[in-house]
């Protein structure tokens, strides 16, 4: 069979995102479950107000961050399977041609879903190790009685086994749908070429602009991942900087760290896909005499505006989320500082983002440089 268990580890990006999602969800859900157990022991109004604020904050964080990450993992998984079927069409077509049924081929895609199990377990274990420190941070003011970390088996099942089962089912079902393509089309690796591009009458784009437009419109998942990576970078890093003023430093490091991991994972996944998907075009452009700069601008440059849009949306999102939490969730809690939009955090994050983004683009431009027609001929 063309898919082996080792392929499960190739979905590194999805494993990392799942790991982050489960890490965050385990922290807040385990804490919330244990916190609910001491509700009757709270006597002071300040403790009760803080109790409700933390319960609500846990719900919001799990709902917004966890939900967002789970949705991203699902989109990444579907995009990965689509790319896998596109690039292994010949082998899959041969399997169908010699008599394997669609479901018998599709069920092997379960390994990609199982890859998420690895990420979920790593996330759960890492979170469990961090939980005692998290409990201390959450109760820094000493409003609650001492609360030991309790293992909740139902949480383990919901955050590790259940997502892996759901993702495996998504993988098999999506592969089953994609493998509906006729055998010959699979073997010829026939793709949906006809990307209709709106163009004004008499208006003609240069070839390089055509490449840029075709690159953007060819794989919409890449647009999502580039925008999402900028969004993560912008939102989480700004949130981390702002949180040093309104929450603990540990908490801000955690948020910033997760944001950066997500940003790097998604942008590397997107750009690797962009370079892989355009390797033939780039190799041919090199052979014809297009310079490295022209290839880089046509293929990678098209994503720059998308990343800036992602950055702006991320800035607005983090401000709205923090304002919402501070205004409504911590409304009744004393000594909570007022939260305002931080222009300095925005500027620092933007400078760091531009530097990082251009550095990554430079690394990938070296990759583009190495694509020659000779390497394509040897495929």
């Amino acid at each position: 069979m063309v898919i082996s268990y080792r392929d499960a580890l190739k979905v590194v990006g999805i494993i990392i995102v799942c790991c982050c999602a489960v890490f965050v969800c385990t922290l807040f859900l385990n804490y919330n479950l244990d916190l609910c157990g001491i509700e009757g022991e709270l006597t002071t109004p300040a403790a009760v107000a803080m109790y409700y604020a933390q319960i609500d904050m846990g719900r919001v964080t799990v709902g917004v961050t966890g939900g967002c990450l789970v949705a991203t993992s699902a989109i990444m998984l579907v995009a990965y399977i689509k790319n896998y079927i596109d690039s292994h069409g010949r082998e899959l077509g041969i399997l169908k041609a010699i008599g394997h049924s669609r479901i018998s081929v599709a069920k092997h895609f379960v390994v990609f879903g199982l890859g998420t199990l690895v990420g979920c377990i790593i996330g759960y274990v890492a979170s469990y190790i961090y939980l005692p420190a998290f409990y201390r941070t959450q109760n820094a003011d000493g409003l609650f009685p001492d609360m030991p970390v309790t293992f909740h088996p139902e949480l383990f099942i919901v955050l590790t086994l259940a997502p892996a089962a759901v993702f495996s089912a998504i993988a098999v079902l999506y592969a089953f749908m994609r493998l509906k393509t006729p055998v010959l089309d699979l073997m010829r690796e026939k793709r949906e070429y006809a990307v209709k591009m709106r163009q004004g009458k008499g208006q003609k784009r240069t070839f390089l602009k055509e490449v840029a437009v075709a690159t953007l419109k060819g794989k919409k998942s890449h647009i999502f991942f580039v925008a999402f990576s900028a969004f993560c970078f912008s939102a989480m890093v700004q949130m981390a900087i702002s949180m040093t003023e309104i929450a603990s430093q540990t908490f801000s490091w955690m948020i910033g760290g997760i944001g950066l991991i997500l940003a790097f994972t998604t942008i590397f996944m997107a750009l690797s896909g962009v370079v892989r998907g355009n390797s033939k075009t780039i190799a041919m452009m090199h052979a014809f005499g297009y310079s490295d700069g022209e290839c880089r601008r046509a293929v990678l440059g098209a994503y720059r505006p998308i990343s800036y849009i992602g950055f702006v949306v991320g800035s607005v999102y983090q401000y709205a989320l923090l304002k919402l939490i501070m205004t409504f969730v911590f409304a009744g809690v004393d000594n909570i500082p007022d939260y305002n939009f931080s222009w300095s955090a925005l500027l620092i994050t933007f400078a760091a983002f531009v530097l990082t983004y251009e550095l990554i683009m430079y690394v990938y431009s070296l990759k583009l440089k190495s694509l020659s027609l000779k390497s394509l001929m040897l495929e």
Partner: protein
Amino acid sequence: MISVKGITKTYGSGEGAVEVLKGINLEVDDGSFVVILGASGSGKSTLLNIISCLERPDGGSVCYDGEDITKFTDSRLTAFRRTNIGFIFQQYYLLPNMTVEKNVRMGADLAHNDDYGKIIEAVGLGDKLEKYPAELSGGEQQRVAIARAIAKRPRVLFLDEPTGALDENTGRQVLDYIANIHKTQSLTTIMVTHNSNIARMADRVIMMNSGRIVQTYNVDCPQSAYEIGW
């Protein structure tokens, strides 16, 4: 004039090393039609890749009008290919997500050639401008590749087994286009093939075997694509 002197090329290293070219010398006059003929593994495609600046040799020189291109930096070599070289390959290498018109524009834009529409008409694809490569037959795809190469207005046209994937009728048609372009534009044309019948269309034939040139001869009366055997 293209002058090739003492070209050597080895792939791999140690015991697995394969010496593909063992000291090749040849000269190609401007405007001539040269065929490099040889069996599979004789080194003809590697020689073509080296002369066309797609690959660097291990030793020797490739001079265009006395200028040794093997000494060029990568960026200078790219600029050289941009203004001087056109390619046509057996596998066409068209861009699958671009229409016929856009594929040809890939070459035309490099030469600021706005008249590429005439070239598409000339290869008989005027009515297929908006078609994608997957919607064309093999012969039509190869004609797009020809139009793309010509639209670039190259000084030298390199062809690697251009009819290798085509049936006899389509193959003759494609060769006829190539011969016409060579004649009308006095384009230096260097074609690699294993088919000795096709070699009869050339002015000069260079026969290769095991990385060496074993025979070179001029063809007194080159035949047309429809006169040669297949």
